[in-house]
C-alpha cells in the first residue's frame, strides 16, 4: 500500500477582488505519495500557488479536507501550523527569499535554530547541506554577494536542512537563466532520488514540467489532469 503524504479533498478557496469573487480553488482533490516528485502546472491564476499555500499550512481553504503526514491541517491553530511547518515542511520561493542580513550558512541554519539545535551542530549541518547543493566555500557569503542561481541553491539547502517530509517550491526557476534553472531542477531530482524527499513544485517552466514524475495540470482552480510519468 502506498504511503500517502498529502490527501486533499474538495478544497475550495475564493477571494474577493473588487466586487467580483475569484474562485482560486474550485473543488480540488489530490493525493500525493511520500517520495513523489510532483509538478503543478498551469497558467497564471490557475490556482497552483494557492494550492501550494494550502499544502504549506500558510493558507486555509473555505471548505474541504486536507491532511498532511497524517495530520489534519485545518484543525490546527496558527501556532500549531507554525510548528508543523517547522517540523514537516520546506519552502523554496520564486524570489529565493533568503534573509539578507544572514550569510549562506546562517540562512540554512536558521530553521535548525528555530528547531532548537545548538549552534555548533546547526552550522555543521548547514555546511553539509551547502556542500550537497554545490556551494561549499560559499558559507560566509551574504545573499547580495551571490548570483540568483546560488541564492536559490541556498534556499534549497535551507529547505532540506530541517529534514522535512515535503518541500514546496513555487516557480523556483522563474528568476533563473536556463542553465541555472536546469541545474536547480537536476539538483532537486537528485535529492528526491537520493534523500527520498517529496517535492511539490508549482511551475509553468517546460524544464520543470519535463522533470515531473507526477504532472498535475490545473486550470481555473480545478485539476484538469493528473499524469504519472
Amino acid at each position, binding site marked *: 500500500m502506498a504511503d500517502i503524504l498529502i490527501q486533499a479533498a474538495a478544497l475550495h478557496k475564493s477571494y474577493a477582488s473588487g466586487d467580483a469573487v475569484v474562485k482560486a480553488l474550485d473543488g480540488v482533490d489530490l493525493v500525493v505519495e511520500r517520495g513523489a516528485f510532483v509538478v503543478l502546472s498551469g497558467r497564471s491564476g490557475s490556482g497552483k500557488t494557492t494550492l501550494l499555500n494550502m499544502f504549506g499550512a*500558510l493558507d486555509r481553504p473555505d471548505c474541504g479536507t486536507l491532511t498532511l503526514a497524517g495530520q489534519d491541517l485545518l484543525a490546527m491553530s496558527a501556532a500549531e501550523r*507554525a510548528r508543523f*511547518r517547522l517540523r514537516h515542511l520546506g*519552502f523554496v*520561493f520564486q524570489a529565493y527569499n533568503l534573509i539578507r*542580513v*544572514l550569510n549562506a550558512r546562517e540562512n540554512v541554519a536558521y530553521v535548525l535554530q*528555530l528547531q532548537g539545535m545548538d549552534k555548533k551542530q546547526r552550522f555543521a549541518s548547514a555546511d553539509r547541506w551547502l556542500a550537497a547543493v554545490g556551494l561549499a566555500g560559499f558559507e560566509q557569503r551574504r545573499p547580495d554577494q551571490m548570483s540568483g542561481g546560488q541564492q536559490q541553491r541556498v534556499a534549497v539547502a535551507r529547505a532540506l536542512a530541517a529534514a522535512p517530509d515535503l518541500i514546496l517550491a513555487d516557480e523556483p526557476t522563474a528568476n533563473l537563466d536556463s542553465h541555472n534553472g536546469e541545474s536547480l531542477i537536476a539538483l532537486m531530482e537528485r535529492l528526491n532520488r537520493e534523500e527520498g524527499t517529496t517535492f511539490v513544485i508549482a511551475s509553468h517552466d517546460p524544464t520543470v514540467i519535463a522533470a515531473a514524475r507526477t504532472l498535475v495540470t490545473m486550470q481555473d482552480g480545478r485539476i484538469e489532469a493528473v499524469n504519472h510519468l
Partner: protein
Amino acid sequence: MFALAWRNIVRNARRSLITVSAVALGLISLIFLWGFNDGVHNTMMRNLQQVIVGSIQIHADGFFHHPKLVHTVPDVNRVAGLLKSAGVAHYSGRLRTFALAAGEDSSEGLILLGIDPLVERQVTRMDSKVDQGRFLRDNQEAACVLGRTTARNLGVVPGDEVVLLSEDRYGSLAAERVRLVGVINSGEMGIDRGLAIVPLGFMQQMTGMQGRYSEIVVQLQPARLEAVASQLKQGLDQSYEVLRWYDMYPMMKQWVELENAFYYIFLSIVLLIVAAGIMNTVLMSMLERIHEFGVMMALGCGRMQLAGMVVIESVLLGVAGIAIGVMVGMLLVHYFHGVGIDLSDQMDSITRFYLNPVVRTEIDTDHLLNTVLAVLMAALLAAVWPAIRASRLEPVEAIRHV
C-alpha cells in the same frame, strides 16, 4: 534571535545611529540635570547637618518643640552607651536656652547655645563659618560668637563686650558679661540672626546646669542615618526624643522631594520623546521587512518569536543609547563635580538655602538607576505596537507584500 535582531539594527546603520543618539542625548541631559539637582540638594542637606543641626539630635521628650533650660536629656551616659554600641565615635552635648544679648546701645532676643569647642569641632563645622575674629577655644572662657546680623544689630565687633541675660535652673535671672570673639557669616538667617554661641562649661556655670545637656548631636554618613536612628529609638524609652535632621527641619526635605517630583515629570516628557523615536525606528524597520517576516513565518518562526525579535531590536537600541548616555552623562557629572558650576552671581538669593556658591554635580544611585530603568522601559514600551503588528501578520499576505 539576538544576533538576527542585532544585524537588523545594523542593516540600517544610519537610522539606528540617529535613534541611539537621540536616546543617548536624552539620557545625558537627564543624568546631568539629576547631577545638578542632586548636587544642590545634597549640598544643602549636608550643610544643614554639618554646620549646626547634625544628622540626629537626642533630647528629652518634647524639648524640640517646647525648649526649656531645665528640660534636659534624662541620662546622658545611657545615650553615650547606645551611641558607642551603634559605632558612633563622635557626638557633642549642648545646652540651649533663650536669652537677651545687649551691646552698647541695643539688645536682641536670641537663642543661647552652649557648646564644647573641642568636641564640637569633631561633630559640626560651625567654626568654619566664622569670618571675623575666631571661634571659641576654651570650654570655660567668658566669650561668645554671634551671627553677623545679630552683631550688626547690637553694634558690636570682635573684642567688644556683650551682656547676656538668661534664667538659671531655679528660674532666677542669670547675667554674664562676655567678650565677642568671632562673628559667623553662614548665609543662613537662622544662624546669622538670633544665635549666640558660648562655651558649654561657661554656660553650665552661668545657669547652674553643670553636667546637664539639652541635646546630644550626632553626625553620620547619610547611609547610616536610618539604622542609627532606629537603634537609638529602640534603646531609649519615651522620656527621650530621637529626631533626624528632617524631623526637625521637614521643609528642606519636602522641598527636595517636590523638586525631585518636578524632575520626574521632566523625565516622563523626555521618555515620551525617546519612546516615540525608538518606536518610529522599530516600526519603520518592521514595515520594511513584512515580506521577510512572512518568509520567516513560512519557515516555522512563531508569532511570539517574531514579536520577541522586534522587542529585542527595540531593547538593543535602548541599551546602546543607555550605554552611551550613561558613560557620557557620568563623565559630565564627574567633570563638573571636579570643576564645579559657579553660581556666585546668583548667590545673594540662594545663600539662605545652605547652598555653596560653587555647585558640584553628583548623582544619587537611585536616581541614576530609576532613570536608566525608565529609559529601558520606554524602549520596551516602544516595541509593543510594532511587535503586536508583526505578530498579527498572516504568512501568505506577508510573503506577497512588496
